[in-house]
């Protein structure tokens, strides 16, 4: 037995060897006190920034952890940084302690051994996470294996101003027809923005007769065949986009003021509650509502991951665990704060904690979990990378 244990230690992933043991939670919280966590998270949304600031206040209060939000315009920046640090030999105290991450960035970091872990499933709050009903253990078809912990659920919804566009649309084909009748009233963020590429994937998932081909990696053989219909669709859509597709909003939140001004009637969002939140913040008119397609829409989880060279791994785990707490999750779901979906299993919560969620008024524009319907799986990340590159060549350098 003893030899086995030694062997197991030797075989464990090298970065984890010298690190703190996530399952010894008391040791983690003790070591975390006084540490500073540089959380690299997309900083384009002021509501998210406010939420992160609140998390910082709370972990400082409860655990003596200082949280610094490094506001990114693109999560890929953080990936680059860790990669560069590894190549420069900075293995002990890198600039980044935690990253808001998912999809291709996670796949890239996991593949390159840039992440600390596994840690997620050892965190105390993992016990109340809904591992059956929500896709928290795979990230764009890639198994997370405990190298990132979930903190929010997202699903594509379409945001429309009922004052100008009273009826919902049932499919991407109907959306195309609607733009032909209403040119200049729809747009999507410019890929490689994640919401922009999500729109492209949503098109593909909806118009393909059998979207399951997207679950396997894209190859030179299947790529052209599968995406041909996407490019035909976009060629038909682009002339009727806002500004005829010569300019695109930079991000999802940049489309809200355009709806508020009446430039757009329809846009998409990856957060079912964001429209209600924006109404509460005066950023959208109260006539805005959301809808999903008949066949459902793409959904995924947002995660946090800890780079292998973080100097504050214990504190980062404390923050990751706090993000999964009922207190933080209920606050994130409050449409007046963030309006993000929770990752928790309501049945696993105590009555007291569940009451936090029951007390929430999800807001006028937010669909109930039942109305949100089927959550369609994200395609394998290889599709997104290729499609985004091709989109850039076809539409990103307009002639």
């Amino acid at each position, binding site marked *: 037995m003893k030899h086995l244990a030694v062997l197991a230690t030797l075989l464990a992933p090298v970065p984890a060897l010298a690190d703190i043991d996530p399952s010894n939670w008391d040791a983690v919280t003790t070591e975390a006190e006084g540490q500073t966590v540089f959380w690299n998270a997309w900083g384009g949304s002021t509501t998210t920034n406010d939420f992160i*600031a609140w998390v910082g206040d709370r972990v400082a209060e409860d655990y003596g952890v200082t949280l610094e939000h*490094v506001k990114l*315009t693109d999560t890929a920046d953080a990936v680059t940084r860790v990669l560069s640090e590894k190549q420069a030999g900075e293995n002990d105290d890198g*600039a980044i302690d935690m990253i808001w991450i998912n999809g291709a960035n996670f796949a890239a970091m996991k593949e390159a051994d840039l992440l600390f872990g596994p840690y997620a499933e050892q965190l105390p709050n993992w016990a109340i996470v809904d591992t059956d009903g929500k896709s928290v253990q795979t990230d764009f078809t890639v198994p997370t294996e405990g190298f990132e912990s979930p903190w929010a659920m997202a699903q594509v919804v379409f945001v429309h101003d009922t004052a100008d566009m009273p009826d919902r649309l049932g499919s991407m084909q109907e959306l195309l027809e609607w733009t032909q009748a209403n040119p200049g009233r729809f747009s999507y963020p410019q890929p490689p923005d994640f919401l922009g590429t999500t729109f492209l994937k949503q098109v593909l998932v909806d118009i393909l007769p059998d979207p399951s081909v997207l679950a396997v990696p894209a190859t030179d053989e299947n790529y052209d065949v599968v995406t041909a219909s996407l490019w035909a669709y976009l060629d038909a859509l682009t002339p009727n986009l806002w*500004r005829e597709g*010569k300019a695109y909003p930079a991000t999802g939140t940049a489309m809200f003021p355009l709806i508020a001004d*009446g430039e757009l009637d329809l846009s998409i969002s990856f957060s079912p509650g964001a429209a209600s939140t924006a109404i509460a913040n*005066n950023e959208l008119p109260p006539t805005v509502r959301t809808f999903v397609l008949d066949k459902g829409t793409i959904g995924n989880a947002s995660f946090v991951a800890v780079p292998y060279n973080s100097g504050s791994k214990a504190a980062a785990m404390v923050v990751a665990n706090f993000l999964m707490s009922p207190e933080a999750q209920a606050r994130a779901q409050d449409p007046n704060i963030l309006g993000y979906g929770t990752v928790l299993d309501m049945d696993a919560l105590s009555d007291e904690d569940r009451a936090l969620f029951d007390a929430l008024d999800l807001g006028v524009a937010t669909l109930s979990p039942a109305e949100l319907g089927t959550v369609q799986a994200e395609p394998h990340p290889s599709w997104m990378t290729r499609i985004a590159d091709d989109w850039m060549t076809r539409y990103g350098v307009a002639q």
Partner: protein
Amino acid sequence: MTKRRFLPFLPALTLLAMLGPVAAGLWGTFLPAFGHLPAAGLTGPTLDPFRDLFDWAGLPRAMLLSISTGLLATSISLLIVMLVTAGWSGTRPFRLLERLLSPLLSVPHAAAAFGLAFLIAPSGWLARLFSPGVTGWERPPDLLIVQDSWGLTMTAGLIVKEVPFLLLITLAALGQADAQRSVTISQALGYGRVTGWLKTVFPRVYAQIRPPIYVVLAYSMSVVDVAVILGPNTPPSLSVQIVKWMSDPDLAMRLEGAAGALVQLGLVIGALVFWRLCEVVVGRLGQRWIASGARGRFDPLVAELALLAGAASALAVLLGMVVLTIWSFAGFWGFPDALPDQLTWRNWMRFGPGTLEALAETALIAITVALAALVLTIGCLEAEYRYGLSFSARAVWLLYLPLLVPQTAFLPGLQTLMLNIGADEGRFPVMLAHLVFVLPYVFLSLADPFRAWDTRMGTIAAALRASPNGVLWRVRLPMLLRPILTALAVGLAVSVGQYLATLLIGGGRVATLTTEAVALASGGDRRAIGVYGLMQTGAALVPFALALLVPAIVWRNRKGLRDG
């Protein structure tokens, strides 16, 4: 080490602080452009990065954008400033315009660009003011104004900021050009105001303001923050694309970015050469024009148009600030309402604390850098005075050199170089990078008043047994309080406005008002942008107000010193 022995080395140290990072950065760009990036396990030399660059379908357009915005912004702002000065200098409208434009100089580029965008976008304030009454628009028209494919809005954003800069530079040059007598004589000979000025004063003024014009050209070609806010994205201008490549998760893209940076450098050098050739051509044509003896029939019309253009450029920034202010207090504000439904403190309560944190970081960096620049500058000037060193006209170009090398050519290289040697990014390297841009402006701002100081005061003080240091500390510096504070304010404003240097060298860890404001551009939250834009402007403007106020209070009983 005593001051006396240290002083002679200050000019060399100053040059090193200014040119060292530029040279190191260019070296750091040059290596990866030819495939050498040890941090990524790549060794050159190879031409692959250039091959990849030329394969990018957006390159021709991105290069064209860089050239067209640079040349257009420089020539139009120069034209406006020259014609306004020619037609109106010495008159009341001119003094009014001058007073309007001087504070605008310190408005950071990013804030001015946001203001302009909020003003002229299809859903902007102008459209709101005239809708639906005049225009009949119930909804904003689907017009590509901001982020237009030709970069015209971006060019306009640069012009409104370069006009005040060139005007102040021109005013300084006018004093030494003996303008008034030339104009009087030419008018006596029957020349119109504008024609007379252009034929007699312009050649002398232009010779003096040539370096700053080149700076404007190089800057306009490679600007990043204004381009992010107002420029096109399909494709973006070359500099914006370089920054995108430098932050791609695929390290190999850094090679392409470095190759792009060298192309950007080549473009700027090419444009400067082209501009120099144009000077020769314009000079020849001008001589012919002078010889033709034309007295200027259309002078009054030209002068009116120029004043209109100058006033429009000043108003664009001022109204931009007003609309930023309104947005920062706005509740719901739908189109086409001229004003929001209600005004509220809510936005300031929400974003205020964040701006204060960023303000503290901004102030710490700006004050340290501006003070360092001031000490180096005074040291250089004092060394020049005590040891009789003299700066030749050629040496003045050294001051402009860091401003002529495009930021996107050497800052990414500096970042890569720091990575290779394992230096930590953070506040201190950011300060060093800021110093490169702050030093030339502080030096240029203080040099003339410092040299113009009446040295007989020093002689008298020395006769009263004051040591050279005593003369400096107790006579010269107090007397120069106002120009010193002005130079300090210039340095602070330049540091506050730095975007790329803070972003790249700070590795994203150093959050100043400028980086935070530009980061908000992608989110499009106009209330947050309003709050951050105003704070950023305030951070740059308040020091100027203090630079006027403090000498007036300190020297309230010294009439001769009050005006510097």
